[in-house]
């Protein structure tokens, strides 16, 4: 498994140590160069001093030099050496420390002497320099003579200094290496602590703790988007779990209560046969019918949800279809003294007539059932870009937050679920049927608590043939309006 911390630790350590090695090496090189440069300057100074003691005489070149002139050139502690040559190769002079030995004859110019490493006559390592110069001329002699000079000196101190520098650099390197190895993982651990905390919090989330949220404000800027997304995900999960829990609870109630009724009725009748009367059988039948209805609807819902393929559709004249579907509700609406306003445009759309009838029946049934007595129901069939049915009734008890749950299976506003006629499955089924026809079914609750259930067909298609001006509705019990261009013909509900 990839670990960000391990990966970062490896890469940071590798990079830091590489840079460290490079820096130390460069520093060491610069220091060595400076030390060698200083050493060479000293060597050149000695060489220049020696060059000044060579003078041109009338017939030769004379070296006015004593070995005691410079310490180190004597033979007591031989550290420095020089040798002067005439251009013909004849040794003009040499240091006492050189004895009979000869220095390497490597020469540069006066301005650009040649520096080189060599082995001294003492057998020790040394560094030398050589150049050709013109000795000073005295007494007005003007004879161009060149003298070759090589000066060498013991480089033991130089080597020792360079070694110390290298040791210092290595020591610093080891120290920095250790510090880096110690510091980097800790810095990373500290830096990645918010990520660890986020991970721990995420690991602690269970089905029972979905209400918890990540403290986004406390997270570093880089993790805040993750925290926000996780919180969104948690909210959706919580919503989903609550829906499932509500569904399970509602289903348990819908199934357990009639079974409990049936069982207690039966046990009572068996234990105390004298308590059994005709109402017992009626009750048993009613319970059986209730459970049959529930089972049928549940199966329909499951089948509809499992059938993902679209239902074959045909062109349906919606206005007469809606009028036909409304007819069975006229009596019930009248019994509740409901005022029904129907405004239907002569439209045609692709739909499955069976499913469409089922959807409209459900919408009309809900409207008649839940509209307050003597209230109003509005049924509209309109079209702008889309064709849509809108069934509106007043819903006093409904809250805005309930609208999202309207289509949840088995959801009922009344938590007690006392009414035996409804299961809370109708709108779920209606929405599933709408989806199967490529229609949509939504709900809207306005500020006056008017609930509108809106069935929409997106690819609108007006049926020009049906736009017959002055066409009357066959509905005798509703306030009916025709589409734009048609004069409304209100008829009071009986």
């Amino acid at each position, binding site marked *: 498994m990839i670990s960000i911390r391990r990966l970062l630790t490896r890469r940071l350590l590798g990079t830091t140590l590489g840079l460290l090695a490079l820096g130390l090496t460069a520093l060491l090189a610069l220091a060595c160069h400076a030390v060698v440069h200083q050493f060479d300057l000293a060597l050149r100074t000695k060489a220049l001093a020696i060059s000044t003691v060579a003078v041109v005489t009338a017939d030769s070149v004379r070296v006015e030099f004593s070995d005691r002139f410079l310490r180190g050139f004597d033979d007591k502690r031989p550290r420095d050496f020089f040798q002067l040559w005439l251009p013909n190769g004849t040794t003009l002079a040499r240091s006492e420390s050189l004895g009979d030995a000869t220095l390497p004859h490597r020469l540069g110019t006066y301005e650009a002497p040649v520096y080189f490493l060599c082995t001294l006559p003492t057998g020790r390592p040394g560094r030398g320099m050589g150049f050709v110069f013109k000795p000073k001329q005295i007494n007005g002699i003007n004879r161009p003579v060149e003298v070759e000079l090589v000066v060498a000196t013991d480089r033991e101190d130089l080597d020792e200094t360079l070694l110390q520098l290298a040791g210092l650099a290595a020591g610093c390197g080891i120290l920095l290496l250790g510090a880096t190895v110690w510091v980097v993982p800790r810095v990373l651990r500290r830096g990645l602590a918010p990520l660890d905390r986020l991970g721990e919090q995420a690991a602690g989330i269970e089905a029972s703790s979905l209400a918890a949220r990540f403290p986004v404000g406390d997270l570093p800027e880089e993790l805040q988007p993750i925290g926000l997304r996780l919180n969104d995900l948690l909210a959706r999960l919580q919503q989903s779990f609550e829906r499932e829990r509500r569904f*399970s*609870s509602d289903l*348990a*109630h819908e*199934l*357990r*209560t009639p*079974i*409990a*009724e*049936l*069982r*207690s*009725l039966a*046990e*009572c009748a068996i*234990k*105390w046969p004298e*308590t059994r009367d005709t*109402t017992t059988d009626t*009750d048993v039948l*009613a*319970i059986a019918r209730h459970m049959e209805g529930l089972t049928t609807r549940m199966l329909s819902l499951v089948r509809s949800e499992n059938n993902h393929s679209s239902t074959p559709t045909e062109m349906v004249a919606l206005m007469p279809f809606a009028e036909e579907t409304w007819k069975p509700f006229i009596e019930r609406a009248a019994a509740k003294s409901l005022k029904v306003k129907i405004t239907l445009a002569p439209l045609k759309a692709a739909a499955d007539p069976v499913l469409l009838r089922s959807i409209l029946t459900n919408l009309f049934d809900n409207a008649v059932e839940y509209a307050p007595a003597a209230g109003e129901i509005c049924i509209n069939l309109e079209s702008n870009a889309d064709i849509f049915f809108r069934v509106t009734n007043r819903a006093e008890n409904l809250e805005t937050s309930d609208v999202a749950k309207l289509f949840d299976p088995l959801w009922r506003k*009344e*938590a*007690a*679920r*006392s009414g035996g006629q409804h299961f809370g499955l109708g709108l779920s089924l209606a929405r599933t049927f709408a989806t199967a026809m490529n229609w949509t079914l939504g709900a809207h609750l306005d500020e006056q608590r008017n609930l509108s259930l809106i069935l929409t067909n997106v690819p609108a298609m007006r049926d020009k043939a049906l736009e017959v001006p002055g066409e009357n509705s066959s509905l005798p019990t509703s306030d009916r309006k025709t589409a734009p261009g048609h004069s409304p013909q209100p008829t009071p509900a009986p």
Partner: protein
Amino acid sequence: MRVLFVEDSPRLQKSVGTALRKSGYAVDLAGDGEEGLWLALSHDYDVLVLDIMLPKRDGLSLLAELRRKERMVHVLLLTARDTVLDRVQGLQAGADDYLVKPFALEELLARVQALGRRAYGTKRPRLVVGELEIDTGARSVQRNGQSVELTAREYLLLEYLARRRGEVVSRTEIEAHIYDDQVDPMSNVVDSAICNLRKRLGAAGETGLIHTRRGLGYILVETTPASSAP
């Protein structure tokens, strides 16, 4: 014992109510939370059988209100909710027991009986008063080793008096715990029940057990108190 059954299903009200009555309990019924709360606050019930999902006021809120008003009636929650969380919530709200629908009537009756026993501070299913022995589990009575046949209501009356043996129990208390609201408070149903009970017990033993304290009520004791009249 007097039981209040709060349930919105009329069919369950009918069957469970019948079963409780047949078992000798005085039963009052309520169809919603508000009515149930009103009844529970107005009467001194021994056991309250309470549905959770009720119209007007849910069972848990009813229970919380009862406990807030220091009503210590023993409560059996009867509900379709069966998750651990639901049970925990119900018991934490102050319920004494929890039964999930669907249920066996026998189990419901046994639980109501157990809660009724708890209402009188005993867990023993056998009550002994002198030569009288009552098996509350089997709902049977023996005196001097002889079985005494009692109706359900007579049995409950005897059990109630036995649970409060040595105490004077008023007619009002007996009415409240043994009879439901359908009994006319002006009737002499308690006196005639006591009379019948004495006859039944008298047939099985020689000395009287139930004594009348004039103007106060009845008392069940082992020996005849000097001041009592048979």
